[in-house]
């Protein structure tokens, strides 16, 4: 647990964020941007959209911090803001642009990376492509529970639905992913 994740320091930061303190916003960014960006990349699958999402999350933070009750960590709260933003339809459109950019970049990266790294990237890219075929609600639970290995409780809190719903969504998402993987093997 980092210093900023400790309750007292976190409380102070939250209080300052509530006051609209710009330095508090910068501190929150420094402490949590990597976690938010990692989540955004896994969810959206491309740099541009992920960076946009990180921007939107932290710009929104001072407006929504009033809703933060301190039951989870500030980081979890930030990820839940990201999840909410990602649900927005515009994101899906932005993601398509990101997909175009990825298509552009793929040939360049392949030739310069070691074999295992290439394989890992290929695997990650395959999963990202498959995730894009899932509805956002299912994609969210896959990223939270399978990729980021969060508990169902935490995932439910982030997504804002009961745990049972998380489980159901995960069940159907797994099923679809398995089908897609089978189809990929056959091809």
């Amino acid at each position, binding site marked *: 647990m980092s210093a900023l994740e400790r309750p007292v320091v976190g409380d102070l930061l939250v209080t300052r964020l509530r006051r*609209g303190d*710009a330095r508090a*916003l*910068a501190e929150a*960014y*420094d402490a949590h*941007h*990597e*976690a*938010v*960006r*990692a*989540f955004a*990349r*896994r969810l959206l699958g491309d*740099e541009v959209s992920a*960076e*946009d999402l*990180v*921007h*939107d999350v*932290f*710009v929104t933070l*001072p407006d929504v911090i009033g809703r933060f009750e301190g039951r989870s960590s500030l980081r979890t709260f930030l990820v839940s803001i990201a999840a909410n933003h990602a649900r927005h339809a*515009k994101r*899906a*459109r*932005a993601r*398509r*642009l990101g997909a*175009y*950019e990825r*298509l*552009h970049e793929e040939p360049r990266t392949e030739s310069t990376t070691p074999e295992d790294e290439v394989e*890992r*990237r290929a*695997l*990650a890219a*395959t*999963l*990202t492509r498959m995730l894009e075929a899932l509805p956002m609600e299912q994609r969210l639970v*896959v990223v939270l*529970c*399978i*990729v*980021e*290995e*969060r*508990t*169902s*409780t935490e995932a439910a809190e982030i997504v804002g639905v009961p*745990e049972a719903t998380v*489980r159901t969504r*995960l069940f159907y998402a*797994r099923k679809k*992913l*398995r089908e897609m*993987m089978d189809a990929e093997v056959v091809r």
Partner: protein
Amino acid sequence: MSEPFANEENDPRLERAARALAEVGHGRSDDAARTRARILQSHRDKQQRSAWLYAAAAVLALSLGVPTAWAWATGRLAHWLEPEAPAAPSAPSSAAVGERRPPREDDEPVTPEVTAPSAPELPEPITEAAPPEPAPVVLAPPVEAPDLAPPEEAGAEGPVVDPAERRAYREAHALHFDARDAEGALAAWDRYLTRYPSGRFAIEARYNRALCLVRLGRENEAREALAPFAAGRYGEYRRREAAALTEAMTP
């Protein structure tokens, strides 16, 4: 706690892919510092905007409050609000005023011989009810309104460069680059280009409009909007970017 369910129905392929995605999608980025600066700038802009709003609200409150206070102090406010208490039977004079107003409204449909309905309407009850008082009551509000309006109009006429064009551009620019609202920005760019098709910022507006279309996934329109740039109609301005974006959109 509920961790196990992530491992339910283990599928090694999915697990391997998920691990790969977790490792590849770390949170470090070359753009982190730029995004940080962008966030802080957006925050400052937002604070500035709300400060302006507060200031505008204060000016509005003052411009409405001062005349109202003056009217209250001079007893004219009561006359402004008079129609709300027409049935007060206590004072005979006010009752007379209250009774006279409704018939005035009835007169219009009933008496066709009244040739100018609007002209006699206002003066009639006022002069009859209380000659010295109503006259200023009717005149006071119109005096306030022109007082407020002219300074704004005068300010708009002042500068030589068309400030409305600049405002329209800035509005679209803020929606596009600060708020990152592609739909809102597209509408604002369209507004700008409709009003100023050959305006000072028309070329930039056209390119930015095309970017909005790309962001919104309206590929055909985006391609169409980017084509003149990619073809070099505006020289080198955004030629390469437009060509690259068009190529990226090719299925």
